[in-house]
């Protein structure tokens, strides 16, 4: 009995050894893929895939112990295949290390591919255990994803950080773009009565200059990456773009507005008054009126004054009422034009269908097959209420004193 227990214990002790360092990988054996670019294939294959792989020594060059390399922080490899797995496995022929996706923070899809349909690439991104579902997806507007991925930038040593941080900053300050992750995208695509949007990025300047060290050795980079517009996806395909105020209107309506600025004329001076909404809430109730869906949209927002370039008495309640109305009107017009544009694309990115599904499931069953058209023709009513909350550090602007 005693010897049995001893042998048993010995076997148990051996168990961890049998694992034999399974799956053990040193950091230096990995190629950290920072960004993944997917384009429509130029050859026989369906996809061209570009991998932006980080060169650690060049990122951390200022540190002791790094080799202090002088090269660019990333290197881009290209490969092609009929699906993502094929492409990534083929890429290993060129890359000396194992491709590692756990730190991939952005997937760029070329516009050509987006117009043709992105459904084919989503499963791989969702299924791979290394891939995070929080990875951000963007579309390269009028460009190939490859171009965007190859550009090196200053300020952020890792170019992919450039995308993420730009997106986050503009989402909070301007509200024309929103950060969409793979998870959001899949949810939008699979849910009935809702279509997803994806933020777009453009590149200004030439790819050639953008990929050379020139781009970071100057204060005016010849190639710039800029967030631009929202892509409306319909049935997995790019239906069209929403730009500037239309994009902002859509963001208002999707209740994703974190902050922006709204300007209007005063005393005949163009954009003399600037206000910045900082809190907002959008409520949408979709009902059926006369056999047609009807959306009742209520937007509430609180704003502060950020700039007055004319004589304006912001201590007068009547003036403030006017101010509030002007802000409301501006928001209303933006939302209206956004809806009109999206109705043209027949893609319900606002989730009106989902709203009906939730509140009137029976009616939804009848209209869901034709929802695209129903959405395109539906009526809506927009009520905006805005509240003046802060004036900043000053009361009346100095313009008022100038008059005296």
């Amino acid at each position, binding site marked *: 009995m005693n010897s049995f227990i001893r042998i048993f214990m010995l076997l148990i002790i051996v168990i*961890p*050894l049998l694992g034999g*360092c399974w799956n053990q990988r040193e*950091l230096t054996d*990995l190629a*950290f893929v920072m960004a993944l670019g997917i384009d429509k294939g130029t050859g026989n294959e369906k996809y061209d895939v570009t991998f932006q792989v980080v060169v650690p020594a060049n*990122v951390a060059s200022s*540190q002791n112990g790094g080799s202090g390399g002088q090269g660019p922080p990333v290197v881009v490899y290209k490969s092609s295949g009929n699906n993502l797995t094929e492409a990534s496995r083929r890429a290993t022929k060129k890359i000396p290390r194992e491709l590692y996706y756990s730190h991939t923070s952005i997937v760029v899809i070329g516009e050509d591919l987006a117009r043709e349909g992105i459904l084919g690439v989503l499963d791989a991104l969702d299924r791979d255990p*290394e891939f995070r579902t929080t990875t951000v997806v963007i579309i390269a507007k009028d460009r190939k994803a490859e171009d965007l991925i190859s550009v090196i930038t200053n300020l952020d040593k890792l170019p992919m950080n450039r995308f993420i941080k730009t997106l986050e900053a503009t989402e909070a300050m301007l509200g024309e773009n929103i950060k969409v992750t793979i998870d959001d995208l899949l949810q939008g695509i699979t849910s009935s009565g809702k279509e997803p949007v994806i933020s777009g990025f453009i590149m200004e300047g030439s790819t050639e200059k953008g990929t050379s060290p020139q781009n970071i050795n100057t204060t005016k980079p010849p190639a710039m990456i800029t967030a631009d517009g929202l892509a409306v996806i319909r049935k997995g395909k790019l239906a069209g773009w929403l730009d500037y105020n239309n994009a902002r209107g859509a963001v208002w309506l999707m209740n994703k507005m974190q902050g922006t600025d709204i300007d209007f004329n005063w005393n005949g001076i163009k954009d003399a008054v600037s206000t910045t909404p900082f809190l907002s809430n959008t409520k949408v109730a979709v009902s059926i009126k006369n056999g047609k869906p009807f959306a009742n949209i209520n937007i509430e927002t609180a704003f502060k004054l950020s700039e007055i370039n004319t004589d304006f008495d912001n201590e007068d309640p009547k003036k403030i009422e006017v101010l509030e109305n002007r802000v409301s009107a501006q928001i209303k017009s933006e939302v209206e034009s956004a809806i009109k544009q999206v109705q043209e694309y027949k893609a319900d990115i606002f989730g009106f269908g989902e709203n009906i599904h939730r509140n009137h499931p029976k009616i939804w069953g009848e209209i869901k097959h034709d929802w695209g058209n129903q959405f395109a023709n539906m009526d809506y009513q927009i009520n905006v209420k805005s509240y003046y909350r802060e004036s900043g550090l000053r009361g009346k602007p100095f313009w008022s004193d100038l008059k005296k």
Partner: protein
Amino acid sequence: MSILTKMLKKKQVQRKNDNFRQKLDHSIPGELLIHKDYQENISRIKGELGNSADLGIRELKIGPYQGALLFIDGLVDGKGINEFILETLMDKKVPIEEFDLFQFVLDQTVALGSVSTITNWNELFDKLLSGCSIILLNGCNKAISGETRGGETRSIAEPTQQLSIRGPKDAFTETLRTNTALIRRRIKSPNLWIESMKIGRVTQTDIAIMYVKGIADEEIVNEVKQRLNRIDIDAILDSGYVEQLIEEQTFTSFPTTYHTERPDVVSSQLLEGRIAIVADGSPFVLTVPAVFVQFFQAPDDYYSRFDLSTSVRMLRILAFFIALIGPSLYIAATTFHQEMIPTTLAIAIAAQRENVPFPAFVEALIMEVTFEILREAGLRLPRAVGQAVSIVGALVIGQAAVQASIVSPVMVIVVSITAIANFSTPVFAMAISARLLRFALMALAALVGFFGIMLGLIVMAIHLCSLRSFGVPYMSPVAPFSGENQQDVFIRYPIWALKYRPRHIARGNIVRTGENQKPAPPKHGNSHESDDTKGN
């Protein structure tokens, strides 16, 4: 197999014989009685001690009678002998008439606090060798022993190992009596009992068992005595010997007895119902039973306010875990779970490791072993050289190793944090345990990553829960859980709320504080309530 067992048996028989011989050798005078002729006695003592140079013999003349004073030079207080034995013996006028010389000397001349009569040789040697003076009188088959212990001993100094910011600054010395006195001075209760015994066939070391009668569990006291009585060894040179002979389990890296050099700590533990074992010649006093959480309670915890004590204690527990799993977390994260490191950090670490030729585990092992060597060397080196070594060590570890691309800077940080964290455990014995287990966890982490670390920690937890110290579960009061004793585990309650003694250790008398001990501003009219309700 059979050859092996045969050989083993042979060895055992040999050993038994050795023991027997040794016993025979030492069973010198047995129950032999002291001779009447004092010269005979002296020559016998000289013979037994092999004419040792430190045996002092002073022949005496008391009136017409002859005698001798014997002592071991260096063990006795020479001044005391001169003043209280020799002077008085010589000054005394001996009455001429018939009288009992022995009784006369015993009662009237030896001016010492503790005097006793000896009739057999065993006792005589015991007394002589422990620093007593022996007076032999011609014609008496008895001897007088006078308590003249003295000689050079170290005086009470500040603790060198268990430092504290606040609180008493005295520490035990190598002298048993001084040590027990230091404790007695703190607990002026007749219930503080001291029992003594001698252990060590050759060294005959004095051992004192101290406990507070009425608080300590009688069963545990008996168990302690039994285990001490069981000891049959030639020498006890430090309380560490005793510790290793009475602890519950040898094959564990966790200490199941507590040792300290601070009398205040021993006193507080006695009052919690623990039993102290003081060994002569050792400035470290053992207390049993010891439980796991006890090793994270520093004396400062009780001398400063509870909010500070609690947060510091939490910090200490955190530091223990860092010391335990710091390097293994690094190994697991960099070789198995790269996705868990923030992107920027992962790239930074990758860049640093770019030129390091070893896998993370080997890298960690190199650094850890280097540090352990440095630490051990720093401990042993003569003080004059120590400084030089620590500078070289700091340079080697901190700078050169990194520049030579043997290790990465992150690894240096990990090792440094681990090393520093290790020193924040108040008791060294527990810190050493974390130091040992760390290497096992590193190996597990290198094999299977976090899964391995988890396995290791689970095995450790099971092992800890299976340990006992003198019958008390080692993890109490966490497992088995005791609600009322949580007051002094992770959170140190305010002193007035530390109501109960540990239930698993003290039996019966467990209430520590009286009612209404919470301090409050005086109400109008009556400024003080009666405060004489302290328990025991």
